[in-house]
């Protein structure tokens, strides 16, 4: 019931959204201009990083766009995914969230629209939080962690992150439910 309230509250918030995002971008651009007056080398280096980030994020955004487009196209697929993450999904939902987080690629920003869509479809906040936490396990990068910290350390950290992702998701949902204002 409370997660339904939370979902409804977020939907209402989305509807009220205006130009906040554009103001935020304008503020950051202003910060760049301001800093450029004092340290142009720093800004040039930052812009180079920005260019690299943009290049690295584009393919992932493309993938997310295709997934979102397919979801928007097929109501059946939307329902199925939302069902896997709704309050009745049980252990299957947790597994999908944790494994999905581990297997997801690229910067998190690219995944937000998809998570927002699932949330609006009724996905549990617990599973979204769990997905976001489990993203810290990056299988392709684990050999580097082994190189720096050894096999035992890598296995332990990976194991604990997987366990903590479930605990984290559960706690986030509990706190959201407790802090939700009572509806009039």
């Amino acid at each position, binding site marked *: 019931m409370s997660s339904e309230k939370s979902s409804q509250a977020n939907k209402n918030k989305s509807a009220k959204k205006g130009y906040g995002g554009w103001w935020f971008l304008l503020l950051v651009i202003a*910060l760049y201009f301001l800093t450029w007056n004092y340290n142009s080398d720093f800004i040039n280096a930052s812009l180079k*990083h920005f260019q690299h980030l943009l290049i690295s994020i584009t393919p992932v955004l493309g993938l997310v766009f295709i997934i979102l487009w397919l979801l928007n196209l097929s109501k059946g697929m939307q329902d199925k995914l939302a069902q896997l993450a709704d309050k009745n999904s049980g252990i299957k939902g947790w597994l999908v969230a944790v494994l999905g987080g581990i297997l997801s690629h690229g910067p*998190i*920003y690219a995944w937000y629209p998809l998570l927002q869509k699932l949330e609006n479809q009724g996905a549990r906040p617990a599973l979204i939080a769990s997905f976001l936490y489990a993203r*810290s396990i*990056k299988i392709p990068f684990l050999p580097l962690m082994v190189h720096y910290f050894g096999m*035992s350390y890598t296995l332990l950290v990976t194991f604990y*992150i997987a366990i903590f992702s479930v605990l984290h998701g559960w706690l*986030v949902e509990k706190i959201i439910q407790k*802090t939700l204002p009572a509806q009039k």
Partner: protein
Amino acid sequence: MNKFKAANTKTLKSFWQLLPVLLGVLLLASMMVEIIPALISHGILGKGILQDTILANIIGSASTGQPIVSYVLAGELQKAGIALLPVTVFIVSWVTVGIISLPAEAVTLGWRFAIIRNLLAFIMALFLGWITVMSLHVL
């Protein structure tokens, strides 16, 4: 045909809503990538395990980028003599907490969710670091 058009419009609308936040966050992240190594090389870390752990958690939370960068930085920190607890907390908070990505997370998933999730992840990074180091001692 209308189904395709509707799917296009809906998807483009989602992306248009995210675009300014995404660009702003990427610009901020690019600044942070430049600032963090400087903070570390200026010896802000290395002043006792408790202070180091809290600072590592804050720096990791404010950092962004591929986790591979955090492994390299953490590895270098350990080589420089920083204890395993702050190093682990740094690695964990790097990905689980996102101060820079908070606006994007809040716009898409709601402020309440974003703040609670990040605060909890910040606290849990300390526990995860502690339990990892303790387990390594036991094993």
